[in-house]
């Protein structure tokens, strides 16, 4: 929020999250090394490390990709999303170790500089089993670097959340490149069905989760409501909105959240100023709309963050007639105060 940037906004939850993450990663590397040394005792240390960090990065990438759609499908996964950026940076670092070691093992100590050798030594684009898969890995690593390097809130502010998000959707290109990197690389030589089976299962899981979450969201995005003569659109009944919660509806090309609190109703843009999280899925805490992703807050009547913070979101006019909620779909500039609609106990309202 708008006071000084910290390197990391540490909290007890983030420390626990990172501790578990570090422990799982260390545990995986140890187990993988042990299993490999038992099954393939002739393996060299470099190859072992390349495979250990490569498979670790692949597993972490699947975990990172699963969190988004899982959190859409079931809110209980939201805590995993809260600190997902640490998971992503860790995955990039594991991939970097893998890439650096592999570049050294296959391209160092030759005539050409290692990176030049990596780019130029295989140009068999016409073959699948001989495809230049290492370059695919390098391309994916560059995308993951850009994402890790811009994971701080400073970049969310400088790029703005929508541009930042578009950049970070590059993870899907990186994922495709990495699946190809493994399928056309290690899988061409690996005889055991374990790697192929695991990669196949991973692709099915990630694709399946995204398609399921997408299908669920499509219904809400597609709904169209007609405006009445006064320009207001009927949203729902007052009693359909729980106290301290919101009803979300698509108006004016984007979702709007109508919050009910202390006998009043206010409507604001569903899009959080921080990372475009779904404000309507949050709740009222200490009199403020609280984003379920990272806890950013806004006063419901004005869409402005409480001092000393300065984030603001657009607001909308709300009316209650015969205990039905009506919203004017024409948004007001971010931070514009709007008198809340009052919900009286017995029908009607202002």
């Amino acid at each position: 929020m708008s006071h000084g940037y910290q390197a990391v906004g540490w909290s007890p939850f983030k420390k626990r999250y990172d501790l578990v993450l570090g422990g799982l990663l260390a545990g995986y590397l140890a187990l993988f090394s042990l299993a490999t040394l038992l099954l393939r005792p002739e393996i060299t240390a470099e190859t072992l490390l390349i495979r250990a960090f490569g498979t670790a990065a692949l597993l972490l990438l699947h975990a990172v990709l699963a969190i988004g759609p899982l959190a859409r499908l079931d809110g209980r996964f939201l805590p995993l999303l809260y600190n997902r950026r640490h998971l992503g940076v860790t995955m990039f670092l594991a991939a970097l170790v893998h890439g650096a070691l592999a570049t050294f093992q296959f391209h160092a100590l030759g005539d050409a500089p290692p990176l030049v050798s990596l780019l130029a030594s295989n140009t068999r684009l016409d073959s699948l089993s001989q495809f230049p898969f290492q370059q695919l890995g390098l391309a994916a690593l560059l995308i993951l670097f850009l994402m890790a390097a811009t994971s701080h809130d400073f970049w969310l502010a400088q790029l703005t959340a929508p541009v930042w998000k578009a950049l970070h959707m590059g993870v899907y290109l990186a994922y495709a490149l990495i699946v190809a990197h493994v399928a056309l690389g290690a899988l061409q030589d690996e005889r055991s069905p374990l790697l192929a089976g695991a990669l196949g299962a991973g692709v099915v899981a990630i694709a399946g989760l995204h398609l399921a979450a997408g299908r669920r969201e499509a219904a809400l995005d597609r709904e169209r409501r007609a405006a009445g003569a006064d320009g207001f659109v009927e949203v729902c009944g007052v009693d359909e909105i729980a106290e301290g919660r919101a009803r979300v509806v698509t108006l004016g090309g984007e979702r709007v959240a109508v919050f009910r609190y202390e006998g009043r109703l206010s409507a604001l843009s569903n899009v959080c100023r921080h990372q475009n999280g779904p404000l309507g899925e949050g709740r009222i805490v200490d009199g403020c709309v609280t984003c379920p992703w990272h806890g950013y807050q806004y006063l419901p009547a004005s869409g402005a963050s409480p001092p000393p913070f300065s984030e603001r979101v657009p607001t909308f006019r709300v009316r209650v007639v015969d205990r039905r909620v009506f919203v004017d779909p024409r948004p007001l500039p971010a931070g514009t105060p709007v008198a809340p609609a009052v919900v009286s106990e017995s029908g009607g309202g202002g």
Partner: protein
Amino acid sequence: MLAAHRRAHRWIWLLLAPALAALLVAALAARPEWPRRPLDPAAAERAGADDLEPEGAPPGERAP
């Protein structure tokens, strides 16, 4: 997430899901009968391989 990004996600995965499946199937089908080269030359040597080049037909071409 913005509505536009949600739409983009749906399109991306409608295209990516079959593409990745096809890629995996094609990659598995393209596997040569033997490894094209040991990934770990030093280990292959220790394991007793005299010749690092595979014998028979070039990699990628299946024996009739």
